[in-house]
């Protein structure tokens, strides 16, 4: 009597049944649906009109913005400034190369099963910054020098975030190890360092880094403003990174430590070969999330007078030639950030899901 072929009775859901189940299952759900539906219907129309239907996309100057909608012309005319800042036009290919390399290294990370994506990722973490180190500022290999004061816009935002995260990873790892060390003084120092940095707002850190740092250093020792902002961001970020990594270290079962001990591995080998590879993999989502928040926080460099993408937009929306383009500018910046952050957060969520199931097997 094995009815192996018997099919389950299909629960068929027509659109009406679907709506009954998902929108109108009870009186308050019906009410909620009605209210939200009404608000959506009334607000989406004008918004879409402003964004697209009545907006101006083409033209050559402020006078071509005639429609009632947004003046995207403003953005497209200033796009060069928003992306490269003051970087000289004829040298912008160098930035473009970096953008391309960045895309080559990291876009495959989002594609399941892309051949060699692990190696591309490793290149992105090591080779890419090295190339960037020579390419962007120039000054060697016959490349014309571009001082950091000329960097700006999206490119500066990416540089700040990228270097910040890259440098804070090793420092954060050391701090996390220190915080879990059995030596009370080392642990204490790490705890104090981490907690202090985590407690202060980034803008005070940036303020210190940008105008006060030379006061603390011996006379004559000085770095340019960008490097100092980077030092501030990195130290601040590594405190957060340390906490993320500590979470990973704590998630590694004691048995792993003991097994490594039993195999005779010393402390650094134990950490480097057994514990950290597992812990770091475990916290990649956390690291990506930290990166996202750092990426957003780079906007604060605007307050210390660096022209990141928000800074460039802000400095142009008051241009008297263009009337009332602030909304367009801000929407553009919001969109830039949103695309990057949303992509990354999706990536980390997928990874989290994968790790989650990976654990159960």
């Amino acid at each position, binding site marked *: 009597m094995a009815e192996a072929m018997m099919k389950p009775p299909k629960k068929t859901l027509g659109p009406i049944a679907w709506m009954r189940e*998902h*929108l109108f299952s009870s009186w308050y759900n019906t009410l909620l649906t009605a209210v939200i539906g009404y608000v959506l219907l009334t607000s989406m129309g004008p918004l879409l009109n402003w964004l697209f239907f009545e907006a101006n996309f083409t033209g050559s100057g402020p006078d071509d913005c005639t429609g009632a909608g947004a003046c995207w012309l403003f953005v497209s005319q200033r796009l060069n400034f928003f992306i490269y800042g003051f970087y000289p036009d004829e040298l912008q290919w160098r930035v473009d190369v970096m953008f391309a390399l960045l895309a080559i290294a990291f876009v495959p990370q989002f594609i399941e099963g892309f051949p060699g994506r692990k190696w591309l990722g490793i290149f992105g973490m090591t080779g890419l910054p090295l190339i960037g180190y020579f390419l962007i500022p120039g000054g060697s290999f016959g490349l014309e020098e571009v001082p950091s004061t000329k960097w700006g816009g999206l490119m500066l935002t990416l540089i700040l975030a990228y270097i910040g995260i890259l440098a804070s990873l090793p420092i954060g790892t050391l701090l996390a190890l220190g915080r879990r060390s059995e030596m009370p003084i080392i642990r204490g120092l790490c705890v104090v360092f981490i907690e202090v940095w985590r407690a*202060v707002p980034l803008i005070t850190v940036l303020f210190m880094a940008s105008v*006060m740092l030379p006061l603390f250093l011996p006379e004559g020792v000085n770095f340019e403003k960008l490097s100092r902002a980077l030092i501030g961001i990195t130290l601040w970020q590594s405190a957060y990174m340390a906490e993320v990594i500590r979470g990973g270290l704590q998630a590694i079962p004691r048995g792993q430590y003991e097994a490594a001990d039993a195999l005779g591995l010393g402390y650094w080998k134990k950490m480097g070969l057994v514990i950290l590879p597992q812990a770091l993999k475990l916290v990649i989502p956390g690291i990506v999330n930290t990166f996202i928040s750092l990426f957003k926080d780079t906007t604060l460099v605007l307050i210390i007078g660096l022209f990141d993408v928000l800074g460039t937009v802000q400095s142009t929306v008051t241009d008297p030639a263009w009337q009332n383009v602030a909304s367009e500018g801000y929407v553009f910046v919001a969109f830039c950030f*949103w695309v990057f952050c949303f992509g990354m957060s999706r990536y980390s969520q997928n990874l989290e899901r994968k790790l989650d199931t990976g654990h159960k097997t």
Partner: protein
Amino acid sequence: MKTETITQSNDSRPAGPKPWYDPRVRSIFFQIVAIALVFWGGYTLVDNTLSNMESRGISTGFGFLEESAGFGIIMSLVPYDATMSYGRTFWVGLTNTLLVSAMGVVAATILGFIIGVARLSSNWLVAKIALVYVEVIRNIPLLLQIFFWYFAVLAALPTPRQSIEVGGSAFLNNRGLYVPDPVTQDGFGLVWGAIAIAIASVIGLRLWAKKRQLATGKIFPTFKVGVSILVLLPVLAYFVAGSPLEWDVPALKGFNFRGGITIIPELAALWLALSLYTASFIAEIVRSGILSVSKGQTEASHALGLPNGLTLRLVVIPQAMRVIIPPLTSQYLNLVKNSSLATAIGYPDLVAVFMGTTLNQTGQAVEVVAITMAVYLTISLLISLFMNIYNRAVAIKER
């Protein structure tokens, strides 16, 4: 002969190894080195700073806190005018920071919980709206959102002369929201008393009702009765005392409103941006907290016959709170720190007033920045401490 021997012996520890092979000695050595490095680093830093400051003729010390400030601040919770000292500007900034932080924490928590639960709603539309909200808001820099709210709100509101009137006594315009300021007269003490009594009796009622319910299983309509007591008793006292309250109603004088209580747009925008932004994070925390309670728990609760609502209330939420609290704490800390972005739109918080104007007028950057950082450190330690205490109270007892 290769043997493994485990012998009992009454002599104490085996003879110690050479010091440099003893992990204890090594660890002490490393720690001493670390401490020495830190002290040396700290010393050079302080030394450099002092000598740099001296060679550049920068005045030092905290004497400046006594000097008269001489600049105005638009909003302060403590009495302030331009003749008061720089020390006072510190308190003005601090209270303003605390105000917007506290308001933000409350609003973000409420909103975050609502949205977090909405994410799990069975209503498709509600769940999707909550999802879109979270994904949009948390992926856009806060600074940008602050600018947006500030300038968008300002642009949307009318000038003082075209104020939006609410009931003839509250006014909304681009200078802020003006509401009447209650000025208590003699005899208002009676109303205060009534309020106190009402609150006390409602608490008593709740305790009694819970006890009765546990004792007899009967449920008392605490909420309805409680609200009635809270409203009726003070109102009654108010009329008995002969309406001892006058309202300082804002009025248009010259080109601005005077009188009443003002909520300035800077505060509103900052508060809005901070709450909306933080709420999107709290929503995710709440959602994952609820999801983290294992399915077995819900099943066991169902197997015991508890319906969905009670399962959520008695089994899921109490356990979810344990998962929610630690990340919630760090969101609160983030909110407090982020309130320092006030400086971008001119809300007079600690960073804007003290680390901004005061620092600039006195030029004593090291002292001012040190004080500011100490304040944030203290706030964050206090919040952590408070949250840890709570956390310990709700922690699961383990073997």
